[in-house]
């Protein structure tokens, strides 16, 4: 009987992942040497920028939050055999929906947050519903359709922002949301808010769902062996659709938390790339929501550290993007090698 919160083969997975990180970081060090910086100095600055003092740690956690929640969205999809690459778009629509509720309606303090967050979740789910329908009805590849939906989402929210809801004067952004819709901040010195706690709770809840709930087991079966699941009496289409919808809902939530907790308004192009960062964090964690907490923290720390890196050294912040890309390459190589080991023919994505 499986009762652990973490997936099996943990040691093998962790060893492979660790090796991939070491390879990627060594390659990164070589690149840092090539731009005449000391890898050790760069590393120390990164650490200082990420964990130097309480403010810096809060900054790291602030960066971690959207990556974590997007990562959970990706985990849900991956477990159910659905590659939701459209989290970026769901995040944009969720962010816009939450901001819209935030500035367009006056509601009592607590209710306002609940309604805004609910709208973000609905917007995210609604946005993935179209690709999800085509996926289960006609077998359209959801990777392609969700990626394409991203572009539409980003431009659609730009359109809303610029043409329908633009704040008078200045930059392309909506009016600020009312203070009743602000997510409570955790510390006085940072914009870090309860979004982080929501993310942590969600990660644990998702992991528990896939481990212990029968619906979670059904989804995992549909993801890893759809034919077997169907034979076992599971409505594969219905489960697949629900999985994508849930994934999109969490993606929308990520956007809502960003606008309600951090920016307090929606700006055109407000959070580019978080959806993809989350997907990468989830892939690195091998589809485990608990593991995603750590990979998201790692990426959050890299990003927060890079902000100081750019100020304190001559290295560009983009060196972080390079290191991130190297990690992805190394980890995908590890995944590929593992997959070749046990090819069953059934699985589209093995997690």
């Amino acid at each position, binding site marked *: 009987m499986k009762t652990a919160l973490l997936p099996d083969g943990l040691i093998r997975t962790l060893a492979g992942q660790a090796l991939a990180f070491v390879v990627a970081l060594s390659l990164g060090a070589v690149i840092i040497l090539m731009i005449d910086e000391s890898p050790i100095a760069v590393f120390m600055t990164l650490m200082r*920028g990420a964990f130097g003092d309480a*403010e810096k740690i809060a*900054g790291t956690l*602030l*960066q971690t939050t*959207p990556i974590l929640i997007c990562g959970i969205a990706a985990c849900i999809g991956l477990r159910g055999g659905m590659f939701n690459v459209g989290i970026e778009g769901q995040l944009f629509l969720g962010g816009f929906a939450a901001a819209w509720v935030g500035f367009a309606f006056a509601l009592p303090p607590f209710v306002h947050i609940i309604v805004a967050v609910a709208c973000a979740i609905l917007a995210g789910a609604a946005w993935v519903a179209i690709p999800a329908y085509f996926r289960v009805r006609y077998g359209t590849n959801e990777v392609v359709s969700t990626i394409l939906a991203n572009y539409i989402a980003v431009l659609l929210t730009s359109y809303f922002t*610029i*043409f329908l809801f633009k704040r008078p*004067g*200045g*930059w*392309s952004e909506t009016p600020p949301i009312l203070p009743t819709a602000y997510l409570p901040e955790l510390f006085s010195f940072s*914009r870090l808010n309860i979004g982080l706690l929501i993310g942590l709770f969600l990660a644990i809840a998702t992991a528990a769902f896939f481990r212990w709930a029968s619906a979670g087991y059904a989804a995992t079966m549909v993801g890893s062996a759809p034919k077997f699941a169907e034979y076992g009496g599971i409505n594969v289409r219905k489960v697949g659709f629900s999985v994508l919808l849930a994934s999109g809902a969490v993606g929308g939530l990520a956007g809502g938390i*960003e606008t309600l907790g*951090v*920016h307090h308004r929606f*700006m055109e*192009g*407000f*959070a*580019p*790339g978080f959806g993809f960062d989350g997907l990468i964090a989830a892939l690195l964690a091998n589809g485990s929501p608990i593991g995603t907490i750590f990979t998201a923290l790692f990426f959050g720390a890299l*990003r*927060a550290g890079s*902000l*100081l890196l*750019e*100020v*304190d050294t001559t290295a*560009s*912040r983009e060196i972080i993007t390079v290191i991130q890309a190297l990690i992805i390459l190394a980890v995908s190589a590890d995944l590929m090698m593992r997959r070749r080991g046990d090819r069953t023919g059934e699985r589209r994505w093995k997690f």
Partner: protein
Amino acid sequence: MKNFTQILAAGVVLAASAMPSFAAEKVNVAAISGYFAQGFGVSIVEGLNKAKADFGIDLKLVDTGNRALDYEEQFSNLAKTGEYDLIFVMGWELVDALQKVSAAYPNQRFVFIDGVLDSDKIIYASFAEEQGSFIAGALAALVENLGPEFDKIGDGKAIGFVGGRDIPVIRNFLGGYEQGAKYAVPDVKVNSVFAGTFDDPAKGSELAMALYGQGTDIVYNVAGPTGEGVMQASAAADKYSLGVDVDMCSSAPGNVLASMLKRGDIAVYSIIKDEVEGKAVKPGVRTFDLASGGVEVKLCEDVAAKLPAEIPAKLEEIRKEVVDGKIAITKAK
């Protein structure tokens, strides 16, 4: 040999005499923006690099990237140590982070380029758009006045203006443009329209086409990205356009008459120069005008070659009169 020693000696004397006038400490400057690689941002980087070469200042450029989440930390990382005498900021999307961090670090001097905000703790570099637009208006009117004799000009005696949104700063451009046109050619007509948006090139193109269709031969674009459509329309209709902010001659070669430049490089250079010379820059608005070279009208070479020589001469004459204060330009408010 004797000559050489003399030059050398002169150099040493010059350097020595120049030394005391520099501030005791090395001036340390940072600049932060997401646009260092394009348009107006490039000219700011040029100005900063020139200041670095001339005054030996320490210069740190920080690219904000495009994630709004990062801006505030990037500003605090720069301001926290207090090591920078001046931090130049460019880009309206940074305003929020700028105001927050400026309030948190009141002793840090920030220079906001091309705009004025509410805070009185910040230094603002603003440009006298009405003066540059006055010259642009005079140029357009003079060329229009040549009539059908000149390539692509009809006999409508009308020039045009496409603005972004109808806001005071754009009205200021229009006011200068109209006054300049009437000053040069009193009976010229000025047709102006506002697109209502800065982000819609298609609309800019549509409006410019409508103006060209009404017998307007030269259209001044003051509409940001919407204005790209204006430049394209001038090529499509084979008429003339006037660019704004940066040199736009290459956006429709042969159809762009000139560009009204806002010289970000001159603004940052002269602010740093004051700082280096010990005249510490204080919060408040600094306006860069025709006299300081902060705004200027640059003719496009391909079209300028065809213009009769008296037009550039006349423009120079008008420019001098504006600089000397002989022509008073009313600012729109």
